[in-house]
């Protein structure tokens, strides 16, 4: 703990941190206020999907992406990193404070989200799959690390923000649409009638057979929890890699 740096971090980022906290409290309040989720399926779904997503984008775009470019653009890195803390230590401590703050917000918002998520939806996609608290926390960590790394790479605020937005959405969409269904090898059935009831088809082979279907690949729905943990692990690994990249980029340019 470095008190001076903690104070500086707070002063530089309080606008975003207060906005994030206010948003977290607002969404949590809404979720707590709704007692009967079945009668309000539409609004609940809007809040449960929109709440964590807005927090994630706020963290990636407005907290992490400008973090390093601001120092470079304003020339303040010369002062920040040549005094009693080195650049890499400055970055480590700052990332530590900010990341723990936003992860706490994310835990709060998504834990309530878990309790309130509506049961009527597709088990392998929004909002059921992604509403799971650890998955949401991993998304926030990933968005933060992506913003930080792109900021270290481009050293320009607006460019880093734009790239973070595009990068985050593309990776999320790609994982959800292409990778997720193959986390574990799918099981195979001859056609849709033979497929067990509590399962989700992930691929259909057309050919000779009833209704022109030669075979169905499916994932049993009881695999959802393990898939959610796999996705959590995947995004946490990506986040760790990006944090190391940012740290390495900053250290390389350290003012010695």
């Amino acid at each position, binding site marked *: 703990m470095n008190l001076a740096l903690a104070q500086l971090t707070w002063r530089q980022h309080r*606008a975003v941190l207060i*906005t994030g906290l206010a948003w977290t409290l607002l969404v949590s309040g809404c979720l707590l206020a709704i007692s009967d989720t*079945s*009668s*309000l*399926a*539409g609004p609940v779904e809007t809040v449960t999907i929109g709440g964590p997503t807005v927090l994630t984008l706020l963290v990636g775009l*407005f907290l992490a992406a*400008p973090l390093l470019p601001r120092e470079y653009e304003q020339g303040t890195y010369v002062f920040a990193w040549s005094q009693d803390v080195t650049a890499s230590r400055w970055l480590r401590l700052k990332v530590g404070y900010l990341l723990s703050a936003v992860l706490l917000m994310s835990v709060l918002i998504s834990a309530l989200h878990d309790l309130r998520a509506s049961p009527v939806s597709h088990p392998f996609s929004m909002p059921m799959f992604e509403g799971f608290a650890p998955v949401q926390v991993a998304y926030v960590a990933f968005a933060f690390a992506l913003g930080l790394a792109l900021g270290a790479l481009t050293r320009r*605020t*607006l*460019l880093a*923000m*734009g790239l973070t*937005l*595009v990068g985050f959405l593309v990776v999320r969409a790609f994982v959800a649409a292409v990778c997720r269904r193959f986390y574990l090898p799918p099981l195979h059935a001859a056609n849709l009638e033979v497929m067990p009831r509590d399962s989700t088809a992930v691929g259909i082979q057309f050919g000779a057979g009833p209704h022109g279907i030669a075979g169905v690949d499916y994932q049993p729905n009881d695999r959802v929890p393990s898939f959610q943990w796999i996705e959590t692990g995947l995004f946490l690994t990506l986040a760790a890699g990006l944090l190391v990249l940012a740290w390495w980029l900053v250290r390389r340019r350290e003012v010695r």
Partner: protein
Amino acid sequence: MLWLTWRQHRVAVIGTALGFLALSIYLLNCSGQVGEVVDSCAQHDCQAGPGFALTELLATLRSVLWVIAPGLAALIGVFWGAPLVAREFEQRTHQFAWTQDRSATRWLGAKTAWLGGAAVLLTGLTGLAAQPLLHRLDQVDAGGSGLHPAPTAWAQMLVALAVFGFALGVAAGALVRRTLPAMAITAVGFLGAYAATMRLRLSWLPPERHLFSPATAAPDLAVLPRGSEVVETGYLDAAGTPKRLTEVCFYSAAPEDCLPQHGIPHSYVDYQPPDRVLLVELVGAGVLLVLAAGLFALAWYLVRRSVQVG
């Protein structure tokens, strides 16, 4: 001035243009796919019509037309509009930019004209690229099946949204004079305006109502005049009070039996008839443009005042 505008904003302009280019290519490609299905359904008898064969594509198109395209328009406001004035204040370059051979208001006028023109051009071209698809979807929607995933005036709405977002960004930047807060305000404001537009765009003029008795959970929209736009569907109890399906029979496997048991004799569909749809939607887009003009005027006033004071 064009050169300066291009130098300062080229990364944002190129990035957004690439997004709109990708969207246009996708929409043209979809038009081909929809066309194939419509044509083959005209030759061979499709079991449940082309709309059924295209269920998955129509769901994707709905999110592309309603979420991704307006999202790109929002980027124009956030990344072109918000930094336009704010960045000059933040980097103190407004003192140079506005005291040379050009007055501050002429500087602002030229920049907003070039960038606003580029925004209209980009969204307009995307709207043109969407026309074949929208025309094809009209054919899929034969008989007002309610499958049409886009409003009639989709292209005009997209252009109006982009202009509105850009004006909002410029005004927010002139007001708070700091880039990041201006960007955040623009994003939130755009989202609010878009949500309000979507909610009010069809219902500001009282819609017509078609009653179904007995109540049905799956209203046959083919009874509406072809080309109508559905505003809302709902249920009425015996006293005529509107009810939602989720309040009474949401989890019921057979809502047709459940509804009369709960005293719901009627269901309704509110719709705008075809001869009104285009007018109603164009007025919605027009309101956005009027708001945009107001925001441009606000930005102009703020910049002029800042020069006079200091």
